[in-house]
């Protein structure tokens, strides 16, 4: 029972081929997408395809929810475990020695970057309480992106459902930060855009829509970037099977190595962009709270 139906892939393919066939002799565009797509099985070195267990789907309010673990769920959890081990080990090493070494140093450099270059400029000192959230977002996305670059790996962030989940959390955090800084009344007042009540029926939907577009953009950006790079690499390698020529093989392998290096960069950049924009949007809400406070105190003074 496939959740992501392969119709799109099949419609693009020159000849319909079963997805499980994988590395077939004839080049088929569907095979490219199979690598990017989610699946109910994972590939392991030497073992081959492993079918993941199925859980019967539940229907809640007309939406069928299938919680069966998929390939992307596996890599999502793997990323979480890798990150947890890395971060907890690093945090513990500070008890023995405050001078970081090795992987702790790598983590610390990025932690300090998120704190000093992302959180502080965008949110100010009031945003320091959200640094742990931003750190989790950054490293979780980063590790998921990087897992897609290793052999047999899959990019969970190349799945729109995963980026949608991250965007939902970003949406909640942005609203929480705004409400905490401004108070609920001020937050709701902001949704009216400060216009005459007659215009509220127009203004409020626009403002509410504005709240959703930001995380939506985050979701699409991450998904598109992570998927795009992989498709480029797979297309370049696909040229080898399409042309069956030695020269094209050398060329496309070199190109795909270059794109892989670019992907490595993109893995970091997209994790950074997602975190930076989230903190920026949170900062806007926090700043609005400060501005209104200043206005109030200013009015009291007069």
């Amino acid at each position: 029972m496939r959740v992501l139906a392969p119709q799109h892939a099949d419609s693009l393919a020159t000849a319909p081929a079963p997805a499980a066939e994988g590395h077939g002799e004839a080049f088929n565009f569907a095979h490219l997408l199979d690598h990017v797509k989610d699946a109910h099985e994972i590939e392991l070195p030497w073992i081959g395809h492993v079918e993941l267990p199925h859980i019967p789907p539940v229907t809640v309010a007309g939406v069928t929810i299938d919680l069966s673990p998929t390939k992307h769920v596996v890599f999502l959890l793997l990323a979480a475990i890798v990150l947890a081990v890395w971060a907890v080990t690093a945090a513990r090493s500070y008890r023995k020695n405050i001078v970081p070494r090795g992987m702790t140093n790598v983590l610390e450099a990025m932690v300090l970057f998120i704190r000093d270059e992302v959180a502080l400029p965008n949110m100010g000192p009031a945003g320091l309480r959200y640094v742990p959230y931003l750190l989790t977002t950054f490293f979780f996305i980063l590790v998921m992106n990087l897992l897609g670059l290793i052999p047999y790996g899959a990019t969970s962030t190349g799945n729109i459902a995963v980026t949608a989940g991250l965007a939902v959390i970003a949406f909640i955090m942005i609203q929480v930060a705004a409400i905490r800084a401004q108070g609920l009344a001020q937050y709701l007042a902001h949704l009216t855009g400060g216009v005459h009540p007659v215009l509220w029926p127009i203004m409020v939907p626009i403002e509410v829509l504005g709240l959703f577009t930001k995380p939506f953009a985050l979701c699409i950006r991450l998904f598109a970037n992570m998927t795009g790079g992989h498709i480029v690499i797979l297309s370049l390698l696909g040229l080898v099977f399409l042309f069956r020529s030695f020269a094209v093989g050398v060329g496309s392998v070199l190109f795909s190595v270059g794109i892989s290096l670019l992907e490595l960069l993109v893995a970091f950049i997209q994790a950074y962009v997602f975190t930076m924009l989230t903190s920026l949007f949170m900062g806007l809400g926090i700043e609005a709270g400060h501005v209104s406070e200043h206005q109030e105190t200013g009015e009291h003074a007069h």
Partner: protein
Amino acid sequence: MFDINPGLIIWTIMTFIVLASLLGKFAWRPMLQALQEREGKIRDALDLAEKARTEAAEMIRKNQENLARAEEEYQSMIREARSVAEKMKEEIVVKAQQQARLELSKAQDEIRRDLDAARLQLRSEVADLAIKAAEKILDESLDAAKQKKVVDAFIKQLPNN
């Protein structure tokens, strides 16, 4: 590929929440705290170094001041000593000159006295000699008293010196 799997959204959110709470408690908070402590330590160390530096500078300044003061004192001491010595020299010279003058006048007095005495003696000796000579010449024609009268008269005729 663009179909959204709601199950995967739930998986993502659940994983994220578990991961965020776990990391928040066991990784990020201890780590950020450790970093903050270390930053505090570095700041303290820098402050301490800065304080030590200013203290050292202050000490150097004080030393230089002391040195300058000592130099000045030493110079004034030399000046004073020199002036004292100058004064003493002058005094000594003056005293010596006075002494010399005194000695000179004393010597002159003595010489004069000696001269007077010598002159007196010479006069009495000359008188005696004259008497003796007159005695010899007159050969007992006159007595001693008469002779004396004659000689005294003669001496009185002589110039005083």
